[in-house]
């Protein structure tokens, strides 16, 4: 009995090896692969290679990078902003995802539509909308002064706070959707079992729902963090003058026609993102969660 079970576990644990890849499906994806190669991979590679080959083979751009105080400050700002935005989207998105799963389907669909609404509006429009809301004579300041809560308008626009608020708003769906996907996969019988075994609602959440949803949390965090790293329009429009993000620094260098340095900055941004993706994908549970999102 034991040995039998042992072998079956071993067999189940072994991954099926790819032996003969059928050629048909490959042909189906070939057009997209060729398109991406020609118009994405090659230009990116060409751009990045300039960081070490322009005008001749050199690592000077990277040595300069590591000693550039502006770059180090910008990198810190970028990572901090990404971390704050990630935390914000998860904290705000988790209850929404939970509600989407728990509500009646009709209501849940309405919530889903509201969650997806930002997806259907351009980032530019949404960033301008936040400028209207947060401006010195924007809706929030006008409302606060009109009701007498404050006397002089607050400085909201062009602060790090504005960047965080607007980015959290824009990136919320990227946190909510993988969370909802993972939460939906949790078997309702587990929650009933937990309740039947003596766990009240909080304990069911804390001991069953939360641990089982961690892959979704990780997937949402990864998506939001990586997307935050490359944010450009929103911090440029609503952020403070000193809160330069990495993508803004790259744009500045391009404006100055300093292509090799811009390329080195881009390579750094890409590397940070890839390292993060690589690290998190090492969690098997996360791979599963991302598959759930793709489905």
């Amino acid at each position: 009995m034991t040995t039998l079970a042992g072998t079956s576990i071993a067999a189940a644990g072994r991954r099926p090896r790819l032996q003969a890849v059928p050629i048909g499906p490959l042909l189906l994806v070939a057009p997209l692969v060729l398109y991406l190669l020609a118009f994405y991979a090659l230009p990116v590679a060409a751009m990045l290679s300039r960081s070490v080959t322009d005008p001749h083979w050199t690592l000077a751009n990277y040595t300069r990078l590591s000693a550039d105080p502006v770059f180090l400050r910008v990198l810190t700002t970028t990572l901090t902003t990404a971390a704050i935005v990630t935390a914000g989207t998860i904290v705000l998105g988790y209850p929404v995802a939970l509600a989407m799963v728990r509500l009646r389907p009709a209501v849940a669909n309405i919530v889903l539509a509201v969650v997806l609404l930002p997806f259907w509006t351009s980032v530019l429009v949404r960033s301008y909308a936040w400028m209207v809301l947060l401006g010195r004579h924007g809706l929030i300041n006008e409302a606060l002064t009109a009701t007498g809560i404050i006397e002089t308008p607050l400085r909201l626009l062009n602060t790090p706070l504005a960047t965080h608020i607007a980015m959290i708003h824009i990136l919320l769906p990227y946190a909510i959707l993988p969370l909802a996907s993972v939460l939906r996969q949790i078997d309702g019988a587990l929650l009933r079992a937990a309740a039947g075994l003596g766990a009240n609602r909080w304990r069911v959440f804390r001991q069953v729902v939360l641990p089982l949803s961690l892959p979704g949390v990780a997937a949402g965090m990864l998506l939001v963090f990586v997307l935050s790293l490359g944010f450009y329009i929103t911090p440029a429009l609503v952020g403070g003058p000193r809160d330069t993000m990495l993508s803004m620094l790259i744009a500045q260098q391009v404006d100055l026609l300093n292509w090799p340095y811009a390329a080195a900055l881009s390579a750094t941004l890409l590397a940070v993102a890839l390292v993060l993706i690589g690290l998190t994908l090492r969690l098997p549970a996360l791979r599963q969660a991302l598959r759930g999102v793709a489905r």
Partner: protein
Amino acid sequence: MGAWLEPVLPRGDAFNGVAGAAVSLVGLEKRFENIGAVRGVSLDIRSGEFLTLLGPSGSGKTTTLMMIAGFEQPTAGDIAIDGCSVVTIPPYRRNIGMVFQNYALFPHLTVAENIGFPLKQRGIDRADRARQVAESLAMVRLSGYEARYPRQLSGGQQQRVALARAMVFRPRLLLMDEPLGALDKQLRESLQIEIRRLHAELGITFIYVTHDQEEALTMSDRIAVMNEGILAQLGAPEDLYNRPISRFVASFIGESNFLPGIVRGTEHGFVVADCAGTIVRSVASGNPRQGDEILLSVRPERLRFADVASDKAAENRISATITDAVFAGERCRYLLQGHGGIPLVLKEPSGLAARRAPGKIVEIAWAASDTIVV
């Protein structure tokens, strides 16, 4: 922490004798958007009893169980455990053990953590927890599996862990919702024996839901047959098998032959009816009057081939044509076309006689005492 559970929970020895809970269902009803899933079920389940709710899917048996567990709120009626109504008590305070069809083991917890889960909710400290988990695992014969995760176990092992988890906190009532439904036949039979043994050892009340009549017959002290949200019949397995009170029960529990007939009168305490030209005697029930249309029922294994002429007065006889003969291991199953077009099934232990060929005209006989009015 867990203070509300303390009066009912022995903290010390896990498996000392505790009497099972008595459960009363009174006019229990559940409507889902005005469709009655359970329509007035009243049932008294005795302390320490093994009671099975048996019925086809949609009969309301699982809904009834879910209401006892507290996962569904009754639309009307009452559920009392040991005389106290529990309908307003949330499931986590009912202190009822429950085993689900798909085990519902927590995939992120080990076997030991799964079984320790109810103990943890009750604030039992780590050392006591470990000891009780080990005892409980020993009861289901899975000692040494503490550190495994559910996905590393076979279906049968998972279900035994689920059993251990449902018993470890010494509930006085254990509910099981088709616990063996996902297992293959052999495993199911060995677990049936194991569940019977646990019931005998623990002495607590078991309420078991199944759609498998064989499982219900072999395991239960009493069976409550449900159909379309109502209680069709309640009784010991033998009673239900030998004296079904309705066509539904007669056909759902075991196989039955049905003979529609018209009452001709009574004779020596038997009802005499005319079934499409054949006179059939049956055990009287109720008060059938001459000319009433009735339905008679007899089990296939009570029919026999009357090769040797028998003239016992209480004997029923019908001539029939064999339409099919099926060998099914220990039994042979004959499909017959009785006189007047009545379809009949006859089961005979195989090896009694050479198998009879389809097309043959035979004489079928059975005892009047095996015939009942349904």
